[in-house]
């Protein structure tokens, strides 16, 4: 998961420079694992009792000390996340403190705790963006999936309050069996509100915080995931979808003409981005539990160096680097690890998911050609 998403040209330039020089330009602060909702598929959320057994949340002072160290190391972009970060009792102190350091702050939130007061505070010192995750398109889905029967209306109210005050908002959504029927409506909501939306159809089969086995039924089958993927691409591309399908298929057909992918981590984790979890341990990204380096007590810079070294040593599967589907497949180091137990493993679920996407795109192109012939 990129901690700095949909960047501007200036941001992309800074990322490129930071990747090259191994500067932690973008850091996520996972303030706490608590949330006011309780979503089926969430692998971060803990109850207060579970949290107390494993540790404690950091105070604003602790987080701002870490922020000062990361600032010295080169962090400019901070993502505040959780759980639900606005549940942190000192959320605003942390936000103000980061902003006074000149940090560019993005917040990941479920939006249900954003009332008029919070919207006014954001409006008086704008964040880069507030990413609101929608879990469904109505209260019924929120009730089934998140155990919050008013969650949808609360989230929508929060979004409207932010929009009225010109606070930048992006919608996020993750599709699971309980909300897959809501996908068309979620895309319609984005259209109606004129907001960007990022929809994830791939769910990492990961566990965290000492939980037991992952439940495969918690995510879509590869066919369902591919179906949702196609729906999203069709919505994004609109009338040029058939042409887009052709472009994607060309990447697959011509894979032999392009260089193999490096076996090293392709994303920014351990190059220009990192994740600091609620226990104040630094990891490469939210989906990688290891390496996890404790950084409290002035150890953030050293922690970053360890993360960089560890990530440089991670090797992905050679087969994935030469696979003809490599330009289309979503695999990453974390996905390979969680799907197979090894960074160098081949994630079968993603292979089949990508095969299905390609099959569907081929069908779409054939239908488009047939329609053009008939006209």
């Amino acid at each position, binding site marked *: 998961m990129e901690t700095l998403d949909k960047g501007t040209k200036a*941001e992309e330039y*800074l990322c490129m420079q930071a990747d090259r020089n191994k500067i932690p330009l973008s850091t996520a602060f996972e303030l706490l694992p608590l949330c006011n909702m309780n979503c089926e598929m969430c692998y971060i959320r803990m109850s207060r009792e579970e949290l107390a057994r494993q540790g404690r949340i950091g105070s604003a002072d602790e987080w701002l000390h870490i922020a000062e160290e990361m600032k010295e190391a*080169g962090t400019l972009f901070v993502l505040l996340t959780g759980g639900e970060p606005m549940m942190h009792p000192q959320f605003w102190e942390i936000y103000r403190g980061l902003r006074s350091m*000149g940090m560019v702050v993005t917040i990941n939130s479920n939006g249900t705790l954003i009332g008029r007061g919070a919207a006014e505070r954001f409006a008086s010192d*704008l964040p880069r963006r507030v990413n609101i995750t929608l879990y469904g398109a109505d209260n019924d889905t929120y009730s089934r999936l998140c155990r919050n029967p008013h969650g949808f209306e609360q989230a929508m109210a929060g979004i409207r309050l932010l929009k009225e005050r010109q606070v930048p908002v992006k919608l996020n959504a993750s599709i699971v069996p309980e909300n897959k029927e809501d996908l068309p409506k979620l895309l319609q909501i984005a259209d109606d509100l004129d907001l960007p939306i990022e929809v994830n159809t791939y769910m990492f089969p990961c566990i965290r915080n000492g939980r037991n086995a992952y439940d495969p039924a918690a995510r879509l089958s590869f066919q369902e995931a591919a179906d949702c993927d196609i729906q999203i691409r069709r919505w994004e591309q609109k009338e040029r979808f058939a042409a887009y399908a052709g472009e994607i298929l060309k990447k697959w057909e011509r894979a032999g003409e392009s260089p193999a992918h490096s076996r090293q981590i392709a994303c920014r984790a351990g190059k220009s981005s990192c994740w600091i979890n609620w226990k104040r341990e630094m990891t490469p990204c939210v989906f990688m539990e290891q390496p996890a380096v404790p950084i409290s007590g002035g150890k953030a810079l050293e922690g970053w160096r360890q993360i960089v070294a560890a990530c440089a040593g991670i090797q992905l599967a050679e087969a994935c680097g030469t696979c003809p589907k490599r330009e289309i497949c979503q695999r990453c180091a974390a996905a390979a690890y969680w799907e197979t137990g090894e960074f160098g493993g081949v994630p079968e679920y993603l292979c089949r998911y990508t095969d299905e996407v390609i099959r569907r795109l081929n069908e779409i192109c054939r239908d488009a050609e047939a329609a053009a012939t008939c006209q």
Partner: protein
Amino acid sequence: MKKNREFIMRTIGEDTVLIPVGQSTREFNGLITMNEPTAFIWEQIDQVDSFEALVDKITETYDVDRETARRDAYGIVSRMVRNGLIVPTREDHTW
């Protein structure tokens, strides 16, 4: 001149940026990249008491003739004033 305190300079590696905070974000919610001469002027702007003193600093630091330094500094300072990054402290607004 004085800096608008709602712009914070950050240096990341070899790059320098200005970050708006507070109410300034209502005018511009992004980041402003600065080249080296602009960053130098930003750092000096509230340390000198006149435009000519600023030009002195530039010619002391960089291998540039005074006329070029004046011309370039005038352009940079004018843009900074226009965009609200710096504010005149003299009553006649000449500095």
